[in-house]
């Protein structure tokens, strides 16, 4: 039986779907039975979603800047 600490330590790997099936099932079972870990896991998942969203919101650079870099590579 996994402890809450085990679950917290493997939370990141679990979110990456990086764990063997047996461990995944053991974690899922623990999350189902333990309200505290369940909430912790939900918060980690929200955290991850917010981080991923930052990457989709990058502001673009202007084409002028790109042309400037391109031309500077041809000088000197």
């Amino acid at each position: 039986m996994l402890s809450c600490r085990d679950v917290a330590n493997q939370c990141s790997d679990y979110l990456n779907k990086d764990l063997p099936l047996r461990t995944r099932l053991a974690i899922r079972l623990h999350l189902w039975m333990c309200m505290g870990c369940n909430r912790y896991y939900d918060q980690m998942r929200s955290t991850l979603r917010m981080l991923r969203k930052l990457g989709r919101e990058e502001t673009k650079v202007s084409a002028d800047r790109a042309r400037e870099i391109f031309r500077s590579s041809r000088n000197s």
Partner: protein
Amino acid sequence: MTTSTSPEDLLLDRALAGDESAFVELVDLYHAPLLRFARTFVRQPAQAEDVVQDAWVGVLRGLERFERRSSFKTWLFRIVANRARTRAVREQRYVQFEVNDDGSDASGNFTPEGKLKAPPREWQMTPERLLLSVETRALVDKALEQLPDNQRIVVTLRDIEGLDAADVCNVLGITETNQRVLLHRGRTRVRAALASALE
């Protein structure tokens, strides 16, 4: 590992042959992510911009060759990582990626048997609102800002830029274990920072 020709490959070939519009497309795809990444090493925005410009110029002048041993994106990030690191060393900043993974937990959240002492408190915002809110976005930025350099670099590559574990190891030249531990610690800290603002 060889990867098949990607659209970026073709853009690169055209840019190297002198096609400016192909280069503009590459910059449009990658400049912003590379800049964000460079800033995880060198804090001054102007210097980060320099590092990325330098990397592009290196690519255009053929100083950096794409050998297709990794994805195009991984290759670009590695060029920026190497240049940003050189720059950081010059500023006498050195990022250490070696970490001890003793599996211990200093959070004080657990009993000696490993049970949670108390459940984390609920956040005063639904998951949907968390994603949409401007304030939480600022909180995430701030939390990232406050991470140790090594954790911020790994979290940025994995979670923000979406590279996989192998790519991150390749870009930074670090072991899989160090990558995993830094990612875990970084995500844990970002959650804790959000929790202290949202509980």
